[in-house]
């Protein structure tokens, strides 16, 4: 399942044949493309994790929080993305868990080298976290963390992340609920208004 590690912009951009989605996933393994539908029961902060230990959960949460940081708007932390990680690792991505743990161990070993007296990635300052992540931003573990942060932040709330749909709110995507009335945007509003006046 190492092919998740190949997940990169370069590969996505090479998949040019299709204008539908599947082409962009040719490098994703079945683990990640078969993320469970298991309903989330762990969105609240106090909820127990299914497979992640408390320390693993805080590491993943801290990494996700730098990938999609909290600024003047909510980020991965507020969206509960770590619960998406836990749900996925507990079910159809369970085959990925040992590789992910191995990756996390290497990540922490590198961290110990860079910051010999650290008390965990989550305890570093944001600037120090970012600086360290920049040394780790290629390869399997980061790519896995990145992809899962994105899937957790932008998939339906039932998968565990995107709490209160704030991932969608951030980008102005008004959810997946259904029907819309014209006009939709700034430019067609002008035209539809002209048409109405003309009628």
């Amino acid at each position, binding site marked *: 399942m190492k*092919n998740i590690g190949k997940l990169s*912009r370069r590969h*996505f*951009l090479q*998949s*040019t*044949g*299709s*204008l*539908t*989605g*599947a*082409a*962009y*996933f*040719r*490098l*994703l*393994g*079945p683990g990640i*493309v*078969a*993320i469970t539908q298991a309903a989330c029961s762990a969105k609240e902060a106090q909820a127990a994790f299914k497979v992640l230990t408390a320390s693993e959960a805080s590491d993943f949460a801290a990494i996700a929080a*730098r*990938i*999609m*940081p909290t*600024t003047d*708007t909510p980020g991965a932390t507020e969206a509960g993305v770590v619960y998406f990680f836990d749900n996925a690792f507990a079910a159809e991505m369970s085959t990925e868990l040992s590789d992910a743990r191995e990756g996390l161990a290497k990540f922490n070993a590198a961290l110990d080298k860079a910051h010999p007296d650290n008390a965990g990635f989550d305890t570093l300052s944001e600037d120090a976290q*970012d600086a360290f*992540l920049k040394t780790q*931003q290629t390869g399997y573990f980061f790519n896995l963390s*990145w992809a899962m942060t*994105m*899937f957790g932040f*932008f*998939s*339906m709330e039932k*998968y565990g992340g995107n709490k209160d749909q704030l*991932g*969608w709110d*951030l*980008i*102005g*995507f008004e959810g*997946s*609920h*259904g*029907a*819309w009335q*014209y*006009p*939709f*945007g*700034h*430019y*067609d509003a*002008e*035209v*539809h208004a002209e048409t109405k006046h003309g009628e």
Partner: protein
Amino acid sequence: MANEVKFDTREEVDFAIIGSGSAGGILAKELSTAGFKVVVLEQGPYRKASDFNHDELSVFVRGELLGGHNDVHGQTFRQTENDIADRPDVQPARYARNVGGSSVHFTANFWRLRPVDFKERSLLGPIAGTNFADWPITYEELEPYYTKVDWEIGVSGEPGPFDAPRSKPFPMPPMPIKSSGVLMERAAKKLGLHAQPEPHAILSQPHNGRAGCISCGYCMYYGCEAGAKSSTLAAMIPLAEASGNCEIRPDSTVIRIDTNDQGRASQVVYLDAAGTEQAQKAKAVVLSANGAESARLLLMSASPQHPDGLANSSGFVGRNLMHNAHSAVNGVFEYPLNDYKGVQVSRIIHDFYETDEQRGFYGGGGIDARPLFSATPIFHVLAGRDPNVPRWGKQFKETMAHDFTRQMSVVGSTTSLALDSNNITLDPESKDAWGRPAIRETYMDHPDDLAMAGFLEDRAAEILDAAGAVKSWRRGIHPTNGGEHLLGTCRMGDDPASSVVDSKHRSHDVPNLFVCDGSSMVTSGRGQPTMTIMALAFRAADHIKAAAGNGDI
């Protein structure tokens, strides 16, 4: 359903139809309502409109409508026969596996071919190293069936300045213009081009007892929960079932077409939902499984009488695969377009449809404006986000938050040339989950196809510039690694030495075997093939009905 009918597999029905998609669904309706007994074998499940959802993780990431990813299907891909085929995680040849086939999940852009598409070889002369050929039929012969598609399947639109002649107007007006369409129309005016409304296999208003579009925005890759997308699931299958003569048999994976001592097709062997082998007897077999599956099944049906595969005395089964080449340039604008709402495309440009020898290469194409990568969030972040911004951190987040609603793509779709070297064969090792030899795709775009895609990419960049994009970027032109348009692999023709079926879709070799789907197409058109596949199916049905009426099947 009151008229629900079940046939015993040992009962010789009039027609066994393999596949229920754009062609199979129409043939099922036409033949069953004409009084013939029909069994439709569909490999996928029978999903109804109410089963469709907007779950991007399930549909887009997990490939829900594709029947899962390539761990199930085992397809392999290589660029040339000298390469070792690899087994990518997503199928190279992609299609929806469900009743209604890919007409369920397609984007529903719906262009007719033009007269020139049928006779381009005569007009332009040969192209060395290719199987570039005229069709055995003309636009004029197909036109009544395009019109039939317009009215029976349900097409919204308005004629454009370069459109082929039509015998009846569109049955309903085009879908309203979107911001992407407004911007492209403005650019076209500045550049001296002609933007026209996009025709859709989507109902802009109620039609034939079906509801109109609710503009949910999930056309591309998703099933339509309103039934407004004119899939055969929505438009044809209910009529076939209501005839009392048609059984749709989902979860039926065909493994072989058997022939008898007379060289005639006698039964279709398939695995039922439980994996048990069954065989449906039929007077005639109609193969409409798509350009990848139809070719695979004919090759899998090899026998001592047909050592190279059924209906393959020409060796043309599986050859001439055409995907249409594509380009896309992304642009971001000052104000929100919110182009994720509504159908994908509202305006197209067909000024570059015809081959222009001054360009220095064969080919033509169409341009459209659509959200593409900004229709849904996960697709956007994976493939559509600004590549000049880091992919994590504060700047990444701010860029996503700004761009998603302000972004659109200008897309080019082109011709593909028919080549021996682009083909579907049986993989010698890889199998699918049912134990069938997996589809092996060999494909390298012809240089002219890539040149045309590059030409349209240049035009798209100009259009975005003229439309006032504040930033834009190209995806670049690369040889494809697969596609959804599965065309040309059982081409029609008058000469049995260089085609698989005749002009009426009857196989040259097996008199009671008909093949009708994207595989029938001799040339690729300019990028939106489904309208033509559906018109061919209505036409084939008329010929098959007439032949059956004369006892000639």
